[in-house]
Each structure stands twice: as structure tokens, then as C-alpha cells.
């Protein structure tokens, strides 16, 4: 069963790759660089999704104190960290080709960097608490606090920095000017495909992590 799912998502992602480079046209103003939308945006979406999932698992851990929920929170945060790094790098590559420099102090760049810092602080905290029960508890608390105060960041960043990010140019008053039908199709296929891949990676890493902890004598 798992193999069928794996096969489907493999084929799906192959289709996304083909669609991104052959099927979809390039955008009007941005040209060929616009194809990064099929990779950069889904990766950034996974980064936010992982952040939300980590928050949810942390809340459930504090309520029930079941160690496997802490495993889930840690694994999803670790994947989120990697996707966050990928989103930052792909964003910087796009920024170089579209705006002429890798770092532009765009609101999106600032927000994703703060999420990156939160993830790094989370793992810094985890690695410096030796006692496992305390580690689970404290990292859950930090994850929740960071998530609760995150809306302020999303609210405040556009005040401070002005944006050149394409979606503020594309979504002029809610209507999509640049994404035509084929582009939109490939984009949503890619979004779904990346979500599958993320969930698959999440399941595997959670299983591995649980086996490791069982070996250490934890009941997970």
C-alpha cells in the first residue's frame, strides 16, 4: 500500500517537473525565471505547514504528555527547517535574477528568515536540555509561544519594509494577471505533489525516530 502511494507521488512529481519546464508558458514580465514559482512557493508552503503541525503536536503533547507526540513535533520541525532553508535559497536565487541582488529586505524574505531563526532556536533548546521529559515539555512550550506571537510578525513586516514580491504585482486587487490557466494548473499540481512528498518524508522520519527512541528505552 505504501509502495503504491510512493509510486504515485513519484510519477506525480515527474509530471510536475515536465509541466513546469515544458507544458506551462513563462510569465509575461518575469520571463523564464517565473518557473521557479512551481518549486519556491510549494516549498515555502510546506515550511509554514510544518510550523503549524509542530504547533499542533506541541499543544497535544502538553495536554496528554504522550512521548510520541513529541516525536511528531520534532520530526515535523526538522523537516520544516530543511524546507525553510530551501525556500530561503530558492527565494534568494529568484531575487538575484529578478531584482539584481540576493538579499533585498523584502517582507517575505524577512518573515521566512524569522521562521528559520525560530526553528534553529527550537533545536538549540532541544539539544541543551539533557533530561528527556524536560526537553519535551520545554520545547513544546517554546514552539507554542513562537507560534502564538507569529501573527504579529506577519502583520508588522509590511509596515516596515516595502515589497517587490511578485504576488503583490500579480494579485492586483484579487485578480490574477499573470497566471494563465496552464500555469495555475501546474502550480496547484506542484503544491499537491510537494505536500504528498512532505507527508511521505514525515511518516518515514517519524517511524525512524520512534524506533531510535524505543531502542533508548522509551515507550513510544
Amino acid at each position, binding site marked *: 500500500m505504501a509502495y503504491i502511494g510512493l509510486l504515485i507521488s513519484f510519477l506525480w512529481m515527474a509530471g510536475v517537473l515536465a509541466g513546469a519546464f515544458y507544458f506551462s508558458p513563462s510569465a509575461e514580465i518575469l520571463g523564464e525565471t517565473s518557473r521557479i514559482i512551481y518549486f519556491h512557493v510549494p516549498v515555502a508552503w510546506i515550511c509554514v505547514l510544518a510550523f503549524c503541525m509542530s504547533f499542533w503536536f506541541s499543544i497535544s503533547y502538553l495536554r496528554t504528555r504522550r512521548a510520541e507526540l513529541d516525536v511528531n513535533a520534532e520530526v515535523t520541525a526538522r523537516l520544516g527547517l530543511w524546507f525553510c532553508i530551501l525556500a530561503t535559497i530558492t527565494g534568494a536565487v529568484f531575487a538575484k535574477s529578478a531584482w539584481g541582488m540576493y538579499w533585498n529586505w523584502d517582507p517575505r524574505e524577512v518573515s521566512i528568515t524569522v521562521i528559520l531563526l525560530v526553528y534553529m532556536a527550537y533545536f538549540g533548546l532541544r539539544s541543551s536540555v539533557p533530561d528527556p521529559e524536560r526537553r519535551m515539555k520545554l520545547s513544546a512550550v517554546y514552539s507554542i509561544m513562537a507560534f502564538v506571537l507569529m501573527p504579529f510578525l506577519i502583520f*508588522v513586516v509590511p509596515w516596515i519594509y516595502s515589497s517587490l514580491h511578485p504576488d503583490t504585482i500579480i494579485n492586483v486587487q484579487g485578480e490574477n494577471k499573470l497566471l494563465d490557466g496552464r500555469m495555475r494548473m501546474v502550480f496547484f499540481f506542484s503544491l499537491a505533489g510537494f505536500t504528498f512528498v512532505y507527508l511521505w518524508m514525515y511518516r518515514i522520519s517519524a517511524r525512524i525516530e520512534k524506533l531510535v527512541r524505543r531502542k533508548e528505552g522509551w515507550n513510544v
Partner: protein
Amino acid sequence: MIQKRKTGATNTLNYAIKILAVIKKDVQAEYRARYAVNSVLLFCVTSLAVVSFSLGGTVKDPGIQASLLWVILFFSAMMGLSRAFIKEQDRGTMNTLRLVCEPGQVFIGKMMMNFILLVVVMLIVTPLFIVLMNIQNIHVGYFASVMVLSAAGLSAVCTLLSAVVAQARARGTLFPVLAFPVLIPVFMVAVKATEKAISEPSPWANSQMLVFLGCYAVVSVIGGSYLFEYVFTE
């Protein structure tokens, strides 16, 4: 045996008395040893001296002046506010606190103590900064509101995180790492609002920044006091 039913008013009163007791204990300890005040103030004044000597009055841009002030205040806060629970943990008095008070009382007491500490630091650093940086037209009311509201948000977050790092190793380095990403919204808005206060003739036009700082403070106090229970109880 007839038990007197406690009314809501006496409950609230007892709660407030416990909070005041926590603050009083910390103020007394601070008065005797002057540990936090001394180290934080010396740090503040030193970093202020470093900044102003290295610039030597060349910086006239209010944006840069505001950012420098907040860099100094941020690191001073990182030094001073992390000690709230670390010192209890080091002296082994954490369990006494657990026995005597409820978590909410400890949190609010410690937070108020941190708030007082931060305001004292601000009262000393900002006049010096204004004099040394030669800032002329400053809007005192707006400036003071920015300082007080930011201090409230900072002290709530730092009190919770102080309790977190008190149970970890490498606390001194871990604390700013944990605090900075969470405090970035306050930090950015405080810098902008301070810039307005020292450059614009009528900064009250930007009162939405004060509302923002106030909302942040309220959310962080509520979130902090709720989460603190999990950190504090073993």
C-alpha cells in the same frame, strides 16, 4: 465543622498579596546584593559609551539613532531579564517558590519585577543617549509610551523564556537565541516608533504603533502566564 466560604474579593486579594510578596522578595534581594541592577547598568553604560565614542556625534539620522538605542536596550534586557529564574535555580530556591505560590502568582510577580528593572534601565540609558547623541526635538509623551509598552512585552516574553532556560544548559548563550525571533515584532516596531518620536513634530499620527505594542504585550502576558504553568510545575 463550618468552613467559611471565601468570597471572590478575598480570593483576588490573596492572589494580589502573593504576587506582591514575590515582587517584595525580589526587590529586597536585589537591594541587598544589587546583582542584576549593577551588572545590567554597567553593561548598559559601557555599551552606550562604546556606541557613542565610536560614532563621536557623527550620526544625525534619526533612524540609525533609534536602531542603536534599541540594540543597546535589547542586549541589556537579554543580560538582566534572563536572571529572574536562573538565580532561583542556582540557589535551589525554585522548589520553595513552587511550594509557597501558584504558578500564575510567580509569573506575574517575576514579570513585574522584570518590568521594573527594565524601566529603571531605560530611565538611566535613554536620557544619557539623548544627551550623547545630541537629539534635539524629542516628543516625550510618545517616546515614553513606546518605551513602557515595549518594556511590558519584553518583560512578559523574557520571564517565560527565563523559566525555560533555567532548566537548560548553556543558558547565557541560549537565552538571546530563543528570545530574539519571538521579540522581533516588538523590536522592529519599537525602532520605527522611536524614530518617529525623535524626528516628527506630531508622532501621535502613528498611534497605531502604540496599539500594536499594547496588543503584543497583552497577548504575550496571557500566553506567557498560561504556558508558564507547564514550565514551572515539575
